[in-house]
């Protein structure tokens, strides 16, 4: 499991780099973010939640059952949308109201 960053979309703000608990994300010569240590990713999703242009995708490695679905988040006020892009183009969304508690 790890992340990938869409280089074209990245605006180089550095927020993902700042929050990664393992400082795994670095900037390349053009100031764009890339994950330098993909195997060291813990899967915490902190970086995706920070990205202002939604350039970061999270995926499960094939070794733990990944089948190519890409996940990211988009924030709209109190709502945090979790978005899942299936390889066949289908998109699913789970909106979470951050002001509501979990039921379990």
């Amino acid at each position: 499991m790890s992340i990938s960053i869409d280089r074209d979309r990245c605006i180089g703000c550095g927020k993902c780099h700042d929050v990664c608990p393992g400082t795994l994300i670095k900037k390349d010569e053009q100031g764009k973010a890339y994950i330098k240590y993909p195997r060291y990713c813990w899967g915490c999703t902190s970086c995706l939640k920070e990205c202002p242009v939604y350039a970061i995708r999270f995926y499960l490695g094939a070794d733990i059952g990944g089948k190519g679905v890409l996940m990211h988040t988009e924030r709209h006020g109190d709502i945090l949308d979790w978005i899942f892009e299936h390889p066949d183009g289908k998109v699913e969304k789970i909106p979470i109201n951050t002001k509501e508690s979990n039921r379990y």
Partner: protein
Amino acid sequence: MRTEYITTDILIIGGGTAGCYAAITASENSDKKILICEKADIRRSGCLAAGVNALNAYITEGRTPQDYADYCLKDADGIAREDLLLSISERLNDVTRRLEELGLVILKNENGRYVTRGNRNIKINGENIKPLLAGAAKRAENVTVIDHINIFDLDVKDNTVYGAYGFGIENDVFYVIRAAAVIIATGGAAGLYKPNNPGFSQHKMWYPPFNTGAGYAMGIMHGAEMTTFEMRFIALRCKNTIAPTGTLAQGVGAKQINILGDVYEQKYGISTSERVYGTVCENHEGRGPCFLQTRGITDEQDKSLLKAYLNMAPSQTLKWIESKRMPSEENVEIEGTEPYIVGGHTASGFWIDNDRQTTINGLFAAGDVAGGAPQKYVTGALAEGEIAALSTIAYCGKNSFHEADPGSVKEHFDELERHLSETVSPYRTEELEEAMQTIMDNYAGGIRSNYRYNSAGLDIADLRITELTELTEALHADDMQELMYIYELRERLIVCKSVIAHLKARKETRWHSFAENTDHPEKSEGFGRLFVNSVYENGRIKIILRRIDDREAVI
């Protein structure tokens, strides 16, 4: 590399749960200068990065702090410090209220009371718990935060701490920090044993792979007394994603079943270690794989689970979405993780007094790095952060500053420079790390041996870990991040040595799986009255057995 000197009153090493709360408390109760040094960024560092799903330690209505302490003592089968547990328990509800004031969402019933999950948990939306805590710490008066600084040694003289040494991960700076008192809050240690997913997803582990036992290692090397490293923590987790299972077990009442569909949990007992042990045994005896029985829950429950997991372990929700099989349709497979050393779940860590002072003067410990008090969890870590902060304020008044010793400063600087320029080693840090994990897995009770070990195997492990430690001397780092990896490996190796010595010293099997000693497969009455402690002296780990009732050393 440039050298920078910083002076403060209270130095907090590790801006995680306990560290942030210690800073907030110290700020509110004194005018001391407080400095947090954090290897990542306090906004999302440590255990809370992804969020948590419940507050696991809370005194629910009709229960008392003594009840909570009794529960922890029972779960640890007597090997825990009642004094520490009580001082934590008494503060659990106050720190919870405080978290709510900071903005944490807690589920309430129609009477405005917190909704409980089981006897000791409350339900929250903990996705943003770390940014909330970090925000409060940053806003607090007199608090300075330095992110992306890795602390790699303490400055201890005549058994008193006067500061610490660190280096920047994103800048070429060597930091010499002077402090009147130090709170160590670096969390526990992951990555000692070969993990569940040793391939591409090697860091898909339960405990943060970035908590490498730095605090334990620094304390050990300066002769601090440590306790109960043999009570390893092995978590029962969802297969592959290593996501927590409590939400399934307590939230929707899912039982542990084997492949025949039999509920096996009652057969082995329901203490934390017995739940793991039962699963290990069922697998071993050919009745695995094992599952949490979620099949048949409602669609509504499915939806709530998807959301709950997004708030703490998003990989599990992704797994469900990706497989297109919801928990109502397919039971969730479970497995035991590799062993961790975590003072917030079991009792491993610094041996401390009730003020949270370690056996080194001026060095206080809080959270997962502190020993003696299992089942602290988030709120317990906050409580300890608070106690440690109040104690340091009192201590600061009594202590005086010491200038850094130029000889020691130079030694530390040269050591870093050596790794940055060294080119002789044929090995890379990650290769030695893998070797360490394999040794621990094979000989010190890892997943491979169903967590079992014996004295002969432990001796081999000890020898091999010592050899690996020697190899780290010549490791090369290209940059500061790689330098951090070298120090993380060294920290883990030091913790491994200590774990091995402790496993060997407790000549009994008190907690199945956590410490499954095949030379001594039964519980011993004598060891039931003893803490296994240790100090590092003259290059060796010396074991000290202490009586539980009066904490006096018997050898």
